[in-house]
Each structure stands twice: as C-alpha cells, then as structure tokens.
C-alpha cells in the first residue's frame, strides 16, 4: 500500500495534463471512441431486435397487406384478427394461467431445495461432502440428453422402492403426460439446471459472514430456523438471480416438456408448435403466407408475459448477479 502511494506521488511530468493541444486531442479521441461504440451497439441491437420488429409488425398485417408488394413493416389496413384467432386457438388465457402456476410452483421448489443444498454445502462438514459436491458439478456439466431414455422409462413405470404397489394393486403408474415427473425431479434437486442454482447458492452462502449465524445459534435457534429466518433473508440477491433464471428457463423449456409429454393445456410452447396446423385445418386458412401471420401473433403473445416480467425485474437481475457470487 505504501509502495503504491509513493509511486502515485511521483507522477512523471511527461503526461500532457493541462496543455491545450493535449486536451483537444483527448476530446477528439474520446469522441471517435464514443462514435465507434455507438455504431457497434446500434448494429448489434438491430441484429437482436430486427426479427422481433418484423414479427410484431407482420402480426398486424391484414390479407391485403400481406399480398401487397409495397407494404413494408407498416400495414395499410392493420387488423387484430391474427391475435383474436391465435388467442382463441391457443386457448391462451387458460393455458397461460396453468403455465404460470406450473412455472411459479417449480421456481418456488427450486428455490427451497437448491438454497437448502447450497447452505448445507457451504456451512456444514459431513462425510463424503467433497464427493457430493462433485455430483453437483456433474449435474451441471452432464448433457441431460444422455439419460433421457432411462428417465422416460422411470416415469413410465413409476414405482419408487416398490411402494406404489401398495396403492395400485401392485402395478406401476404411468406418470407421462402429466406434470408430475418434472415436479418430482425438481423436488429432488435434479430439475432444470438445478445444479447451477445449487452452485450459485453455495458460492453465495460461503461469502456471508459467519457471525450472523452464530448470534442466532447462541439465541437458541435451531439449524433450520437459523437457515429460514436468518440466512435466507440475507440471500436476497442470489434468490433474485435464481428466480429470474428459473422462471425464464422453465417458461422456455422444451426438453422436459417434450420428453415427459407434459400436457398442452399447461405448456404454451407446445401450443405454439401446433398453432399453424390447427388454424390451417380448423379455420381453413390454406395459404401459408397468411397462416404464418397467426404464428407471429402467437409468438408475440407467448413472449409478452416474460417481457413484462423482465422489464420490471431487470434492474434487480443485474444487481443480483453482481452480488450473488457467480462472479467470484
């Protein structure tokens, strides 16, 4: 430290502070740099936004707009017809409600299970701890498609320790086609990217000072009370990060939904993939260039809820990541 101060105090005089020419030069340089930065940022934003703008604009096109060669982005006869039919055929509000319950339920389970595991790894010493933490890393790194067929059969003939036989005349139950497989896996800490969340919580709890827990222990709180009433309130940044990632990834997830055939009354993502065929057959919209417009409207309706959530939470997200310990 002293060394640094000494070095700072011995500023060399060769720097061009104060001279008018150096000042101009620096201003010009920073202006050119700002221009360069602006161009790059606008270009990248354009690449990200242009498909979105195209989809939103096209979703308001009427048939005439779609056939007219002079219409570009701004429709001459805008219509809400695409949204009306897409919402009707996707059973939008119904499915969205179910999906929100599904996503929020899973996120809460993720938070409870992963924060518990993270706390256990961060603060307790127990046998096989290193091996168990290596398992967490394996869960993060392992490509889940490798075990998808065993998972599929596990839930097709679901008999945990043969206990199911007690309720179902000795037969196994087929849980495919229901949301139960996803819930069971999440409850056991192996849900969608659970390993990553456990890792985030472990890193975060390691960074918290030990004194707050010791105070709670001396006051006579048990380990679980210390965890739920002292540690969790202090882990707000990690909770926000995990919440947002979990909501976004669970909402967009196609892998578990497709593997376990979770019903299309729950997943909007499955509705959107059949929307065009439904509209073509049920409503006799045969021209693909028109039925595509309905898909665009459906896509907009599907990303809208996430977009609204994100706009409200994005400030907390960046702050949350900064403090959640992914960084260090």
């Amino acid at each position, binding site marked *: 430290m002293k060394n640094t101060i000494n070095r700072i105090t011995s500023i060399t005089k060769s720097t061009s502070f104060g001279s008018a020419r150096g000042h101009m030069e620096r201003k010009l340089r920073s202006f050119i740099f700002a221009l360069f930065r602006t161009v790059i940022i606008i270009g990248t934003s354009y690449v990200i936004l242009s498909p979105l703008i195209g989809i939103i604009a096209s979703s308001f096109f009427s048939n005439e707009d779609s056939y007219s060669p002079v219409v570009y982005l701004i429709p001459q006869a805008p219509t809400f017809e695409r949204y009306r039919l897409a919402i009707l055929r996707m059973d939008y509000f119904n499915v969205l409600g179910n999906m929100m319950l599904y996503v929020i339920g899973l996120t809460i389970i993720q938070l409870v299970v992963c924060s518990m595991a993270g706390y256990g790894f961060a603060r307790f010493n127990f046998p096989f701890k290193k091996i168990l933490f290596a398992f967490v890393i394996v*869960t993060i790194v392992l*490509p889940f498609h490798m075990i998808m067929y065993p998972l599929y059969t596990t839930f097709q003939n679901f008999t945990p320790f043969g206990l199911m036989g007690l309720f179902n005349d000795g037969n196994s139950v087929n849980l495919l086609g229901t949301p139960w497989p996803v819930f069971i896996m999440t409850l056991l800490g192996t849900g969608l990217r659970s390993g990553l969340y456990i890792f985030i919580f472990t890193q975060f709890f390691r960074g918290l000072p030990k004194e707050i827990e010791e105070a709670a222990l001396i006051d006579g709180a048990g380990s679980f009370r210390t965890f739920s009433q002292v540690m969790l309130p202090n882990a707000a940044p990690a909770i926000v990060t995990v919440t947002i990632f979990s909501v976004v990834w669970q909402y967009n997830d196609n892998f578990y939904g497709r593997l376990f055939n979770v019903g299309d009354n729950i997943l909007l993502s499955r509705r959107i993939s059949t929307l065009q065929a439904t509209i073509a057959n049920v409503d006799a919209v045969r021209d693909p260039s028109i039925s595509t417009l309905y898909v665009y409207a459906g896509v907009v309706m599907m990303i809208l809820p996430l977009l609204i959530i994100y706009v409200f939470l994005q400030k907390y997200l960046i702050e949350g990541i900064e403090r959640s310990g992914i*960084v260090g």
Partner: protein
Amino acid sequence: MKKSLSLSRKKAIVGLLFVLPFTTGFIVFIAAGIVSTVRMSLSDVVMAGTASGVELVWNEFQNYIIAFTQHPTFSEVLGTSLLNMLIDVPMIIFFSLFMALFINQKFRGRTLVRAIFFLPVILGAPAIATALSSARAMMIGGVSPASPEVMASLGSGMVVNVSYYLYMLGDLAIPPALIEYIIDAVARINSIISMSGVQIIIFLAALQSISPSVYEAAKIEGATPYEAFWLITFPLVSPLILTNVVYTIIDSFANSQVVTLSYNTIFTEYNYGLGSAFSLVSSLAVLVVLAIVTLLLSKRTFYHT
C-alpha cells in the same frame, strides 16, 4: 440418545439433511440413468413383456461398431457438431467480453441497451424457433405469393458481396485461414449474438466488481487504456472466462445436431441401444473437450488467493 451425540456429529447430520433431497435425486435419477444408459448401449434392446417393457441382450459392443463403421451419418454429425462448437466458443467469448466492456461504460440509454442485450435469453425458446422455421419451410414449400425468381431479383440489388471486401484484407498479408474464419464469423453473427446473452451478463457483473480505484491508480501512474485492459481488466475477468467457456460449451452442445440425432434414434426409430451409444460417445467427447479446455485455461487464470 440425542445428548450422547457430539456437536460436530450433530452438525454433520444436520448438514446431510440439508443436502438429502439433492443426494437422493442424484442417485435415483442421474446415477441410475448413467448406469442404465451404459448397459443399454452394450446391448440389443428387445421389446418384452417384463416389468420395464424391454429386455437387454448383451451384444459384444455391436452398437459402438455400428455407430463408427456402419451408420451413414453419425461420425460426420459428431465431427461437425464438435467442430462447430470449437468455432463458436471463441467467437462467443470474444464477442460477449467485447460487448460487456462497451456496456460497462457510462453513456445515455445504458439501461435500455442492457435490456436489449438480455432479450435473446428470453426469446431463445426452442419452441418459438421451431414454429417460425416450420412456418418458413411451409412458405418455401407451399404456394408463395412471389415466385423464387422474383424474390431473387428483388434481393440481388440489396446484397453486398461482403466476402469480396474481406478478401481485400488478403492484400494486407493477413493469412487466408484467418480471413475464412472472419467470414464465417460474419455469416454466423446472428446466432453468435443470440447465444451470448448470459455470457454478456456474467462478464458485465465481473467488470462491475472491479474497484474503480484500481483504474485511477493506473491512470495516475501513466498507464494507457490499452495497458489498463491487459494488466488489470483481463486478469481480473479471467476466472469468468473459464466459467463462460464451460457454460458456452455445454449450452452449444445441448443444441447441437448430434443431440438431435440421438434423440431421433431413440424416440422416432426406437433403436434404444444405438441411440444410447450415440449419446454416450458424444457426451464423452464433450467431457474430454471440457477437461482439456479447463486444464488449459485454469493454468492461465489469475486468482486472488
């Protein structure tokens, strides 16, 4: 009974209780899944009236032999997937670090730009991509309002021959391989941008955790911004480069063609043994890549301790 336990043993038991759900899940689903995939890949899977519906017959590594010597596409798809991954990863890392450096600076509209850059993470739903691409396929295959010739003539006026300008760089004695790589990067810019949302956020968080006083001290000592980047920013961000490389490899592998191939082999061709062999081989290949990359990078990574 309870009182006979020492404090440390009691704490050990509580700790085990905290990680119990995860441990159970790992053993029941993941460990068991790995074991059963390995067994299946070594067998002929035959439909049978047993409780699990299938019977495994040992077949002397036939699935692996078929995968590498007889299957028409597997070796090629595996190679392309790995190669694409090796091309994509450096570009994604470079691009996201570059963008994070930009967004980290103070300028007007920074919040908006950050929001836009995180959009690909939200919009990246595979279902949306599938719906849009199938809509596009129907447009091309079906009756489209404009014939392909009309579309081509409409487009030709707007297309700039980018590679012509890029090959002009060859006059500057830049090696052709590098130019090819840059052209490839330009062609993929769309997918690179859409795959780097999370990485940008992670780099951004790392950059913000560097104390501004370090830069001030460096500036007073006469360090140029260039030196400040290589001597301060880069070493302090380097642990996160490793994190991001690992994340990118896993992420790009999860969306690669070889995953689709093994998925289709299992679920549409019902060839469980062969599909399991595919996924085991490809997963092992990725794990080897991950191990090599981690070893190479962690030696060059700077840690505080």
